[in-house]
């Protein structure tokens, strides 16, 4: 039976979702990490609400970035180890589409829950409740772009020993634009400013990521599998 690229992508998404829900504790770990990191900031900076509110965009975004990086490790590693990626590459189907599907699933399982849990972290940091939806939206969009860029570095580090630190070293410089516009969007949401411009920039980065990142990730994975 021959299926189109979209059909294969759906199959990959269904497979990854099923596998992920068999090990729910792995899904919760990045979220717990995010909350712990966010707790460290009031302990080290100040418990004073007004100053915490100023620092909130930074706290939220650095926490989100770090826990995304943590989750990124699991994007390709297991499938590379048990040979699934090799089968993907040999299947004759578009590896680009399959990896794009994997990246989207990865975001559904890590980035989206992260975005949805930001209110739990944001409210204790003094973020006003009216701003919460905008904060969730900006983190959701930003983490999607982050997953796309991270897919490239995750593919590149497949052939490396001790990929973890290297993965962060490669991803962090590339994530600077996402961090800048994401934190700005959150900051604007908190002070009640115009959230549109930075969100649009985040959207533009995400669109660029959707167009180019899966191609680069597929090339990177092929190099790692050779």
């Amino acid at each position: 039976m021959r299926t189109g690229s979209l059909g294969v992508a759906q199959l990959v998404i269904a497979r990854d979702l099923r596998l992920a829900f068999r090990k729910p504790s792995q899904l919760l770990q990045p979220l717990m990490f995010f909350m712990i990191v966010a707790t460290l900031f009031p302990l080290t900076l100040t418990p004073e609400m007004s100053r915490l509110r100023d620092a909130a965009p930074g706290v939220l975004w650095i926490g989100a970035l770090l826990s995304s990086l943590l989750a990124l490790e699991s994007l390709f590693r297991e499938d590379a180890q048990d040979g699934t990626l090799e089968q993907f590459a040999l299947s004759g189907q578009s590896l680009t589409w399959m990896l794009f599907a994997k990246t989207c699933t990865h975001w559904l399982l890590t980035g989206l829950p992260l975005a949805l849990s930001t209110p739990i972290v944001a409210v204790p940091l003094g973020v006003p409740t009216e701003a919460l939806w905008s904060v969730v939206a900006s983190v959701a969009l930003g983490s999607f772009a982050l997953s796309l860029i991270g897919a490239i570095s995750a593919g590149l580090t497949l052939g490396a020993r001790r990929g973890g630190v290297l993965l962060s070293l490669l991803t962090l410089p590339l994530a600077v634009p996402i961090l800048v516009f994401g934190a700005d969007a959150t900051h604007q949401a908190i002070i009640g400013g115009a959230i549109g411009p930075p969100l649009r920039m985040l959207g533009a980065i995400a669109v660029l990521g959707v167009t180019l990142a899966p191609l680069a990730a597929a090339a990177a994975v092929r190099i790692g599998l050779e």
Partner: protein
Amino acid sequence: MSWAWFHRFASPPWVYGFATRWTPWFGGAALLVMLWALYGGLILAPPDYQQKDAFRIVYIHAPSATLSMAVYATMALAAAVGLIWRMKVAHAVAAACAPIGAWFTVATLGTGMLWGKPMWGAYWVWDPRLTSELVLLFLYFGYMGLRAGIEDPQKADKASAMLAIVGVVNLPIIHYSVTWWNSLHQKPTRLLGEADMVWAMVWPLLLMFLAFFLFFAAVVLIRLRAELLRRERSASWIREVLK
């Protein structure tokens, strides 16, 4: 048009010979031009009316900054050539570029900090240019880290080449995002401004740019030879060359 000149660059022994022949010429020219430019910049050029003699650091700082970016572009170009035409020598060139580029970036940041302390009153300000230069350093680190982290040399070549290309696509985005980011905060006071430089200050600077490019050419050829020796250590031409 004949492509023979291009194909010759795919042959490690030919490139090794080319590098051996040209290194002293580039190195000697770099030394001469640099001494001439230093004489012009440090002795002949008048002190700046505001910055006095401190402005003279520009003769190291500005060429380093240009080279830090030009070397990254060279590296990415070589990496792309290596990836597209599967030229091993091009990968060796990219590998040779990375540490040199990283050092130019360090030199840019270091001289900038030394100049910033007396002029801005601080070693570091979060100016967009400083920040993008710092991110550039991190990109070099990532490139070298990836190269060092992958044991199989061919995989390391290809993976790091991909990273160099991804970095080139990202650099302008990083630069503009950082510029945007800083425009939200207060602008650092630029003491230099758009001040017109007199010709006595300009010609040593132009010479210095030339000297730095020549210096880069010499150093990259030396590193390229070392890189080729390491990669081709089991090839028979090495024994003949090293006789």
